[in-house]
C-alpha cells in the first residue's frame, strides 16, 4: 500500500518499438463517464453553473468538509495505529484474535453504522431512553442535544468505520519492516515512547499516508453517513441540487468541481508525502527472521493495552452490532426467520453483481498495477481513482445516459451494475493489487524470463502465484465495497433486482428505524464477514521466512 500512492506520473519510460501501454488503453474507457459528466456540465448554461457554485458557499463548505474528513482521519489513526502496533509488535493477550478483527469493521457499511449509532445516541435513541427511565422522565423529553447530528458526529461515525483502511496499511507495513530498526533505536538510548515517535511513526509515514488518504477521501465523498446525520457537505449539496433543480447538468458541474478538489488533494498528498526519502528496506527477505520471538513484552501495561483493544472493538464492531441485534430482536424470532428466508433472492443478487463487479475491477486493476509494477508509470492507475471520487448518484445517473447512448442493450440489466462497481472501485482494487505486486521483486519475473518463460508464462507461473494472497485481498476489497454500495445501485438496478443495501434502504425509507432494516444489515455484515474469514483462512499464518 505504501507504494500505491507513488504515481510516477512523469517518469514513464517509453520503450522503443513497443505497443502503447495496454494499461492506458484499458483505463481509457474509465474516462467515458468522466467525459460524459464534462459534456453534461457543458449543457448547463455557464452563468447558471457559476451561480450554482457561488450558492454553495464554497469556503464554509470546504472548511467544514476538511474538519469532517480530517477529524475522521485522526480518529481512524487513533483507533487503528495502536491497534495495528499492539497486535504486530507486542505480546498483548488475544493478539491473533484482535489481528483478525482489525479489518472486520469494513464489513459494516458506514451508513449502517450511522443508523446503529443514531439508534443509540439520537434524541429518542436507546441511551436516551435508558437515561430517561433512570431519572424518571418522559422519553419525549430532550435530555441532551443531538450530538451525533453534527459534523463531529459524522466524523465520529466515518472515522470509526473506516479505521480498517488505516489498520490494514499500517499493519502490513509493520509486518514488513524489521523490528531491528526499532531495537537499534532503543540501543541508541531512546525510550520506548521515543522509539515510537521518532522511528516507528516516521517509518510508517507512507502507510499512514496511504491509509489516511483513503479515510480522508472516503469521508470527503461520503454521502450515506452525512445525509443520514444531516450534515451539509459537498455531496449532500450536489444531491440537493440534483433534486431541487431536477437537473443533472448542474450537479455534473459540481461533481466535477468535487473531483478536481480530490485530484488536487491526491497530488498534494503524494508531493508532500513521499518527498524523496526511501522507505523500503533492502534485504527484507531476511529481516523478518525470528520476528515471533522479538515481540515487545508489555509488562504492567498489558491490561491497559487489552482494555484499549477491547474499547476499539466495542466502538467499531460490538456496539453497532449489538444495537442492530437489539433492533432486529423487536421482530420476534418467528417473524425474523420468515423474513430472513424471503431475503434469499436479494442475497443472491448482491453476491452475483458484487462478485462480477469485483472480478471486473480486479481484472482491470491487475493490468494497470502490472504496468506500474513494470515501471510504466502510474497514470492509468491514477485515472482509475477518479471513479471513487464521483458521488454514486451522479455516477449512476450518468451511466444511465451513457449506456443508453452507447450500449442500449446493457441498460436495465444487472450487468450494468457490475460495470458501475468497476468504475467506482477499480481505484481501490488497483491500490490493493499494486501493493500486492510491489511486494514481489521484479527479479522474480526476470528470473522466469531468462529461464525461458514468455511474459504471460512468467506471470502465470511465478508472479500471480506469489501475489495471489494480496490479489485475493484486492478482490475482497472490491467485493466488499461493491456489495455494500447503495447510491449508484438504487439508480441503476433493473426493476425487481434489489440488493441487500437497497433492501436496507427500502426498510429505512421515510422516518423511523424498521427492525427489518437491522435484520438485513446484519445479514449483509455476516456475508461480508464470511468473505473476510475465507481470505483469512487461506492466508499463510506467518511469512514463509519465519517458518525456517
Amino acid at each position, binding site marked *: 500500500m505504501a507504494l500505491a500512492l507513488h504515481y510516477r506520473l512523469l*517518469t*514513464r*519510460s*517509453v*520503450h*522503443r*518499438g513497443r505497443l502503447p501501454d495496454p494499461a492506458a488503453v484499458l483505463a481509457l474507457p474509465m474516462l467515458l463517464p468522466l467525459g460524459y459528466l464534462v459534456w453534461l456540465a457543458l449543457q448547463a448554461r455557464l452563468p447558471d453553473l457559476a451561480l450554482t457554485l457561488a450558492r454553495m458557499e464554497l469556503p464554509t463548505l470546504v472548511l467544514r468538509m476538511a474538519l469532517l474528513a480530517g477529524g475522521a482521519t485522526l480518529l481512524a489513526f487513533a483507533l487503528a495505529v495502536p491497534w495495528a502496533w499492539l497486535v504486530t509488535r507486542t505480546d498483548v493477550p488475544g493478539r491473533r484474535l484482535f489481528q483478525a478483527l482489525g479489518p472486520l469493521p469494513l464489513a459494516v457499511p458506514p451508513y449502517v453504522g450511522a443508523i446503529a449509532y443514531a439508534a443509540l445516541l439520537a434524541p429518542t435513541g436507546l441511551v436516551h431512553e435508558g437515561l430517561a427511565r433512570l431519572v424518571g422522565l418522559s422519553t419525549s423529553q430532550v435530555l441532551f442535544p443531538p450530538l451525533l447530528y453534527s459534523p463531529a458526529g459524522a466524523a465520529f461515525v466515518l472515522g470509526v468505520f473506516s479505521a480498517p483502511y488505516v489498520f490494514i496499511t499500517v499493519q502490513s507495513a509493520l509486518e514488513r519492516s524489521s523490528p531491528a530498526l526499532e531495537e537499534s533505536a532503543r540501543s541508541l538510548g531512546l525510550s520506548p515512547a521515543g522509539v515510537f515517535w521518532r522511528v516507528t511513526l516516521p517509518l510508517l509515514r507512507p502507510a499512514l499516508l496511504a491509509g489516511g488518504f483513503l479515510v480522508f477521501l472516503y469521508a470527503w465523498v461520503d454521502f450515506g453517513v452525512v445525509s443520514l446525520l444531516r450534515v451539509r457537505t459537498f455531496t449532500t449539496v450536489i444531491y440537493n441540487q440534483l433534486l431541487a433543480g431536477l437537473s443533472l447538468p448542474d450537479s455534473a458541474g459540481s461533481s466535477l468541481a468535487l473531483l478536481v478538489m480530490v485530484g488536487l488533494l491526491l497530488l498534494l498528498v503524494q508531493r508532500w508525502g513521499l518527498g524523496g526519502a526511501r522507505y523500503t528496506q533492502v*534485504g527484507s*527477505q*531476511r529481516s523478518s527472521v525470528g520476528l515471533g520471538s522479538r515481540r515487545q513484552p508489555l509488562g504492567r501495561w498489558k491490561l491497559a493495552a487489552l482494555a484499549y483493544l477491547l474499547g476499539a472493538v466495542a466502538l467499531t464492531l460490538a456496539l453497532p452490532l449489538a444495537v442492530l441485534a437489539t433492533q432486529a430482536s423487536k421482530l420476534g424470532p418467528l417473524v425474523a426467520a420468515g423474513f430472513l428466508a424471503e431475503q434469499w433472492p436479494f442475497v443472491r443478487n448482491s453476491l452475483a453483481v458484487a462478485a462480477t463487479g469485483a472480478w471486473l475491477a480486479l481484472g482491470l486493476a491487475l493490468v494497470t498495477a502490472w504496468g506500474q509494477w513494470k515501471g510504466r508509470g502510474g497514470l492509468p492507475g491514477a485515472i482509475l481513482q477518479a471513479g471513487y471520487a464521483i458521488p454514486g448518484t451522479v455516477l449512476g445517473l450518468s451511466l444511465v445516459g451513457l449506456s443508453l447512448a452507447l450500449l442500449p442493450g446493457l441498460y436495465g440489466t444487472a450487468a450494468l451494475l457490475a460495470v458501475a462497481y468497476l468504475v467506482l472501485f477499480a481505484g481501490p482494487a488497483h491500490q490493493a493489487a499494486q501493493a500486492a505486486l510491489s511486494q514481489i*521483486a521484479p*527479479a*522474480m519475473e*526476470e*528470473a*522466469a*524470463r*531468462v*529461464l*525461458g*518463460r*514468455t*511474459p504471460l*508464462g512468467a506471470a502465470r*507461473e*511465478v508472479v500471480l*502465484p*506469489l501475489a495471489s494472497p494480496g490479489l485475493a485481498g484486492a478482490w475482497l476489497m472490491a467485493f466488499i465495497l461493491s456489495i455494500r454500495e447503495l447510491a449508484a445501485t438504487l439508480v441503476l438496478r433493473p426493476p425487481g433486482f434489489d440488493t441487500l443495501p437497497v433492501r436496507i434502504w427500502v426498510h429505512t425509507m421515510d422516518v423511523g428505524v424498521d427492525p427489518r432494516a437491522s435484520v438485513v444489515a446484519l445479514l449483509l455484515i455476516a456475508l461480508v464477514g464470511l468473505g473476510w474469514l475465507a481470505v483469512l483462512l487461506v492466508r499463510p499464518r506467518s511469512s*514463509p*521466512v519465519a*517458518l*525456517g
Partner: protein
Amino acid sequence: MAPGPVIDLRGVTRRFASGVLAVDRLQLQVAAGNIVVLLGPSGSGKTTVLRLIAGFEQPEAGEIRVAGRPVAGQDVYVPPERRGVGMVFQDYALFPHLTVAENVGFGLHHLNGRDGARRARVQELLGLVGLAGFERRYPHQLSGGQQQRVALARALAPNPAVVLLDEPFSNLDADLRARVRAEVRDILRAAGATAIFVTHDQEEALSLADEVAVLWAGRVVQLASPEELYRRPATREVAAFVGDANFLPGRAHGEAVVCELGTVAAPEAPEGAVDLMLRPEMILPIADESGNGRVVAREFYGHEQMFTLQLDSGATLRSLVGRRRHQSALRLGQRVRVEVQGEAVVFPAARGGAAPDERGE
C-alpha cells in the same frame, strides 16, 4: 562451441528516460569458457550491460550477439526467454513458492513430459553444486550460501551460452564470501560455462576473473587479465579503483621520473610533467631521523602491515610491508626515509583534480 566470441557487444548505447547515458558505445567480446568480470563503481553502467545482454533493456544503438546470433540491434529484438542466457540475480530471485528441485528444473521446460530426463538433470546440477538431498526444501529453509548455489544450479540447468551473475556475493557475510566465491568459480569451471560477473568489489574481480573489464561512465576503459590490470592500469581512475594507489607529481626524463622520493624507474614515461602511481607494496619506509617523512598511522594485519606516511611536502603515502621485513619497530611519529622498489606507472599530470576515490555503493 562456435568459433568467435560467445558474447559480442558492438557500439552498444543505452540512454535512460531521465537522459542519463548508462552505456556509451560499448565494445565487449567474451570468448567461450572465459569468466569475465565487469568491474566499476556504482553508476558506471555495469548492471545495465548485463541487462542488455539478458534482454531486459534494449540498446538505442549498436548490436548484441549471443553465440553468433544477433539478439539486439537495428530491427532485431529477441526476448529474454529466447536468448539462451542464464542469470543469477543479486538476491538470487529464487521462487519462494517452489521447492529447490522445482526451482532448478524451472528452466527445463523443454523436457516437459520427460520427467525422467528432467529429474536426472536436476540431480546432476544439485550434485554439481553440492546440494544433493535438498530437493524438497523450500528456499527459505536454506542458508544464504545454499540459496546462492541453488540460484547458480538453476541458471546452469538449461545449458545456457553464458551465465550472467549480478553482484552475486553482495548478500553474503564477509567470511562466507571468499569461500562461496571459490566454490562458484569451481562450479563454473566444472560446467565449462562462459560467465559474466558484475561487481564493484575489485578484490572479488581480481580473484575470480580470467579477464576484467573496467567500466567507467558507460564505457570499457580497460579489458585485461587481473595481473595486467593491477600492474599496468590504463588510466588514473582504473589505478585508483583497482587496488590501493599512491600518486605523486614528478618530471619524466628518459626512462626515469624525478619526484619527491628521488629518481624512480618508469620505462614508458612521456617527457615532462607526470603523475607517478606507486602501489603500497612498492613503498618501503626505513627508520631514519634525517628522512623526509614520518609515520602517521599503522594497521597491523598479522602477516603484513599498512603504514600511512606523511611526507614533509604534505603528501600522504600508503605503504604495505611484509612481516619478514622487520619493520615492526616503526613507531607512530617516527621519522622515516622512503625507498621505492620496482617500476612505477606514469600518467599525464592531473590538472588540479584528485583521483576519484569512490569505490563503494
